[in-house]
């Protein structure tokens, strides 16, 4: 392999070609691209499972998936979308953007960066191949509550191992991002001069090192309960399954903010650019992000209101949860105020960013509704909850990812994406997303439970509408792949600075496309007043 020989000669611009370039690369842009392609692949894998679920629910009765397989589909859909699609996609953005936005030549630990990425395909293949082992994939829901998760077969072990690997990858990635941001900023760039995307990722990375080890501990306990005779969660041996829920959600609630804070960051870059105004209330944005992160650590038991808890505990977690609406509201008002009297244009990134604000607020409000104990007891484990978290994760996190992808594609590839097709992608996604998920609020309020392959006849119409929307949404995403490939292959060079309102370093100090090695000499940074 010539590629291996090439690498022996030392540290210059020669890098291995072909596949070895990608296996051995330590370049943050290469690794960022790999993260993004990986998460896109996982997005379609998880999407395939989602369409399987929606196809089964198209009509009452069992048509396509046997109940056990249906349960595996819901479980793996959740795990793959959370750990395989959304989280790695944001890490991909961090890899590309954080060094360029703070004027650093690369990530702090380039070799570890390569490791963090290459753990992901291993974990993903464990998850996907668990469908084909005896007993099938894990089927106890993506939250893998015991006793179901202490009982399942080999598929559950593979899932546990995959979660271990994904956790290790996330922790390494987070350590890398924190060190890069804190130690490698361009001279003169103070913390409060950093772009908001960098700020949100700094806080997210701290959340990751705070809670991912706890998740690793939880699944380790599960593993020893299954195979080594411990009884952490086994009532027969004196354990307590409710304890699992506490430890899981101690990780799980900060986790949902891990998936949304970087989305806030992306939107906070895009809204000012296309409003041609500086971000309104920069420092309040930073403090709001930090408050959300801190509050997210003390609200976990709102996932467990029906598990049995003293009233005083329910009240504490209810009020703490509702309190999160305050810093989140600050953010929404700031974005709106940024747009106020701006000379706005509506290119695809801006459309997705505005769609994000609009739909994320709906998801946020249904979150406040779910926080109210008596209502939560009613809607617990119904489609209302499904609708709520898809509004924050799909039209929240995913729309922000699309917005960011369109925003930075010209910088990454040097070519402009097709604006008309991009707008089509936005409007199709926007319409089909709401067709899919808005009706699920009604299903949930009417009492349809989640995680069931069959349902009572009165739910038939809304389910059919939802399934039609889901297939429309899924198909629309193929358009995104086409747009990205068309953009990469395009012969036309993008303008040096396609967005005239952009003010961050990657637009002002680097050519388009960004060179393979950027900021080897730190840029001269002049702070803009916020």
């Amino acid at each position, binding site marked *: 392999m010539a590629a291996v020989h090439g690498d022996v000669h030392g540290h210059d611009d020669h890098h291995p070609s072909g596949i070895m370039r990608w296996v051995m690369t330590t370049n943050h842009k290469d690794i960022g691209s790999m993260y993004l392609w990986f998460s896109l692949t996982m997005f379609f894998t998880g999407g395939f499972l989602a369409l399987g679920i929606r196809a089964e629910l198209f009509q009452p009765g069992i048509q396509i998936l046997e109940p056990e397989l249906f349960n595996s589909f819901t479980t793996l859909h959740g795990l793959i979308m959370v750990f395989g699609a959304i989280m790695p996609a944001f890490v991909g953005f961090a890899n590309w953007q954080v060094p360029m936005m703070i004027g650093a030549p690369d990530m*702090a*630990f380039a070799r570890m960066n390569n490791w963090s990425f290459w753990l992901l395909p291993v974990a993903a293949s464990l998850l996907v191949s668990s469908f084909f082992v005896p007993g099938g994939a894990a089927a106890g829901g993506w939250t893998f509550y015991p006793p179901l998760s202490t009982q399942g077969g080999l598929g559950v072990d593979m899932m546990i191992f995959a979660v271990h690997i994904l956790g290790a990858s996330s*922790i390494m990635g*987070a*350590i890398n991002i*924190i*060190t890069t941001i*804190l*130690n*490698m900023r361009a001279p003169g760039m103070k913390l409060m001069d950093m772009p908001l995307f960098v700020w949100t990722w700094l806080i997210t990375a701290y959340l990751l*090192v*705070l*809670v*991912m*080890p*706890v*998740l*690793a*501990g*939880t699944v380790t*306990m599960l593993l020893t309960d299954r195979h080594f*005779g*411990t*009884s*952490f969660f086994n*009532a*027969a*041996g*004196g354990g*307590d399954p*409710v*304890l699992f829920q*506490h*430890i899981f959600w*101690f990780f799980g609630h900060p986790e949902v903010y891990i998936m949304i804070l970087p989305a806030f960051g992306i939107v906070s870059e895009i809204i000012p650019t296309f409003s041609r105004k500086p971000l309104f209330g920069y420092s309040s944005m930073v403090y709001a992000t930090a408050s959300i992160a801190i509050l997210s650590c003390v609200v976990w038991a709102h996932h467990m209101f029906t598990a049995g808890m*003293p009233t005083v505990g329910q009240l504490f977690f209810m009020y703490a949860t509702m309190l999160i609406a305050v810093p989140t509201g600050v953010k929404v008002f700031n974005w709106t105020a940024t747009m106020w009297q701006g000379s706005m244009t509506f290119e695809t990134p801006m459309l997705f960013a505005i769609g994000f604000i609009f739909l994320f607020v709906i998801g946020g409000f249904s979150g406040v509704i779910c926080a109210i104990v008596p209502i939560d007891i009613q809607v617990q484990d119904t489609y209302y909850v499904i609708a709520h978290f898809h509004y924050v994760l799909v039209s929240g996190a995913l729309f922000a990812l699309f917005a960011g992808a369109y925003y930075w594609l010209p910088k990454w590839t040097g070519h402009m994406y097709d604006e008309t097709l991009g707008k089509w992608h936005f409007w199709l996604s926007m319409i089909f997303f709401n067709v899919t998920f808005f009706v699920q609020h009604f299903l949930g309020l009417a009492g349809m439970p989640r995680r069931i392959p069959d349902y009572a006849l009165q739910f038939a119409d809304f389910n059919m509408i939802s399934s039609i929307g889901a297939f429309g949404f899924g198909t629309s995403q193929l358009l995104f792949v086409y747009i990205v490939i068309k953009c990469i292959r395009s012969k036309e060079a993008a303008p040096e600075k396609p967005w005239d309102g952009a003010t961050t370093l990657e637009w002002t100090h680097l050519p388009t496309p960004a060179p393979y090695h950027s900021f080897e000499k730190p840029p001269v940074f002049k702070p803009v007043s916020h």
Partner: protein
Amino acid sequence: MAQSNKIEINQTMMKKLLIFSVVMFVFGYAMVPFYEKFCEVAGINNLLQPDKLAKTMEVDTNRWVTVEFDANTRGLPWDFKPLQRSIKFHPGEPVEVMYEITNHSDREITGQAIPSYSPRFLDKHLRKFECFCFTRQVLKPKETRVMPVQFVIEQSLPEHLHTLTISYTFFELPVGSKAVSEK
């Protein structure tokens, strides 16, 4: 010089963050005893500690409650049954019932009984002073043992409830594991 200095700063930071991750991993485990202690102090999930007898327990002779007894085993070769199907008494009146277990196998087996009640919130009105479920039970091959449960149903029991069920299920404790009560 500046370059190597920078690498050093980065590596110090990595070490700190790695240590922090390990601490958080241990924290996950620390939540287990913390949770148990918390439940004990708050009186939640208090299945295995005897309750204290109130000094003056008034008997409500105006109404009767019937308590039915149920016994199950899960995965161990024991015969487990209450010696009386049900008992009728006044709220506030202390009662004692007997259960019998027999080990039919040829090996020594350790079991732990876990109670469950119907209605679910019965534990708020039930005070147990003595129960075989407070400790693990070790039965030699072919051994039979008769064991008491002493309890009182408090007067706070809602008026509309007349029939209650107390159920126990014996689980086998793996060799070497500790019973709940010994933790």
